[in-house]
């Protein structure tokens, strides 16, 4: 957040504040304060998006206390009036501080909900590795909501592409408990019904040991240590082979003129 932004926020806020105070209403939920609330909502949101903490955002409002108290001290005619004024101002600023904290929190929750939604879509890219071979690198926690998305997008792509092999790579899944295992087994079974065989790759050694202790039976599923191994198996099953040919550099084929001139 640049100084210029803070400056323009402060200007907007104090302008709205002045108008609200003129109304004489000291309840910040009242209509007279709606402009102030709008300004605060806007600046809480932009701060939340930029990762500021709720207390940092509240400080924006609460830092007004000192200058306001100073001004009141200069204006007040006697101690009693000063005490009253300070009490009113401080109640108001506290209300605004709470309001801004709440607004910040709400904006933050909005940001998180949006990110979760984006993550769900982002982290389920089904890739075509070869004609007839799909790969799905699963990254992150495989809980029910996400698994549903993962499973559906994979099955849809199997149908759309007529693929016969689907590789589910779980290198990026931190925990495989019985629920995750069950989701994987269901995905494999559903893919089989669509005519595709699944290979599960990326089962790290510590995960493999844990699955065995849990007693989960993955015998019915083809597993491979790495995505590369799974891909090699997929090609073999399709009757394709990767063979070594003598290296031929791009530039070599572009130099007939040079060799002709020699």
């Amino acid at each position, binding site marked *: 957040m640049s100084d210029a932004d803070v400056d323009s926020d402060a200007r907007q806020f104090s302008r709205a504040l002045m108008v609200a105070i003129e109304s004489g209403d000291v309840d910040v939920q009242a209509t007279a304060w709606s402009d102030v609330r709008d300004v605060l909502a806007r600046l809480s949101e932009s701060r939340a998006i930029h990762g500021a903490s709720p207390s940092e955002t509240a400080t924006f409002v609460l830092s007004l206390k000192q200058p306001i108290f100073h001004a009141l001290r200069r204006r007040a005619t006697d101690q009693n009036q000063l005490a009253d004024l300070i009490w009113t101002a401080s109640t108001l600023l506290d209300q605004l501080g709470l309001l801004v904290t709440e607004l910040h929190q709400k904006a933050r929750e909005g940001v998180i909900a949006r990110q979760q939604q984006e993550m769900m879509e982002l982290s389920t890219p089904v890739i075509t590795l070869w004609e007839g071979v799909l790969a799905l690198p699963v990254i992150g*926690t495989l*809980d*029910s909501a996400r698994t549903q998305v993962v499973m559906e997008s994979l099955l849809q792509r199997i149908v759309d592409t007529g693929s016969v092999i689907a590789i589910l790579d779980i290198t990026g899944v*931190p*925990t*495989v*408990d*019985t*629920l995750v*295992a*069950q989701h994987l087994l269901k995905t494999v079974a559903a893919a089989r019904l669509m005519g595709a065989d699944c290979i599960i790759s990326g089962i790290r*050694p*510590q*995960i493999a*040991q*844990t699955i065995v*202790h*849990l*007693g*989960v039976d993955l015998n019915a599923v083809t597993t491979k240590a790495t995505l590369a191994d799974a891909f090699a198996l997929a090609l073999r099953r399709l009757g394709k082979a990767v063979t070594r040919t003598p290296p031929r550099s791009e530039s070599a084929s572009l130099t007939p003129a040079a060799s002709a001139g020699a």
Partner: protein
Amino acid sequence: MTSLSAESLPVETSEHVVSVRQAVRRRAVELGFSLVDQTKIITAASELARNAIQHGGGGEVIIETIALQGRRGLRLAFADRGPGIADVARAMTDGYSTAGGLGLGLSGAKRLSHEFAIEAAPGTGTRVVIVRWK
């Protein structure tokens, strides 16, 4: 057994399953657990947290770093407010599930731990305590 430090976390929603796993991971790393040992206790925690939510209607877990005779370990105590379990021996049987699950959570959590205790008298909720030593 001495308690070196403890924290209590809610176990009410599936987001809590993730936060419980993360808290267990943090402590297991602090204790210097090997990758395999970390994975075992995290996975056991995941099973018990999920059970407390799915079958026990929610509860809490106390995650504790403990020491006994020079050994250090991690103790997890899950407690929920659910119906308890009428037949614990049956619930501990591999493959037994009343909810269409794999039925390997309770028995699996036991195999992944060094110590396992369960109290599930009907009406008082279910309490499962596991320990994994370093």
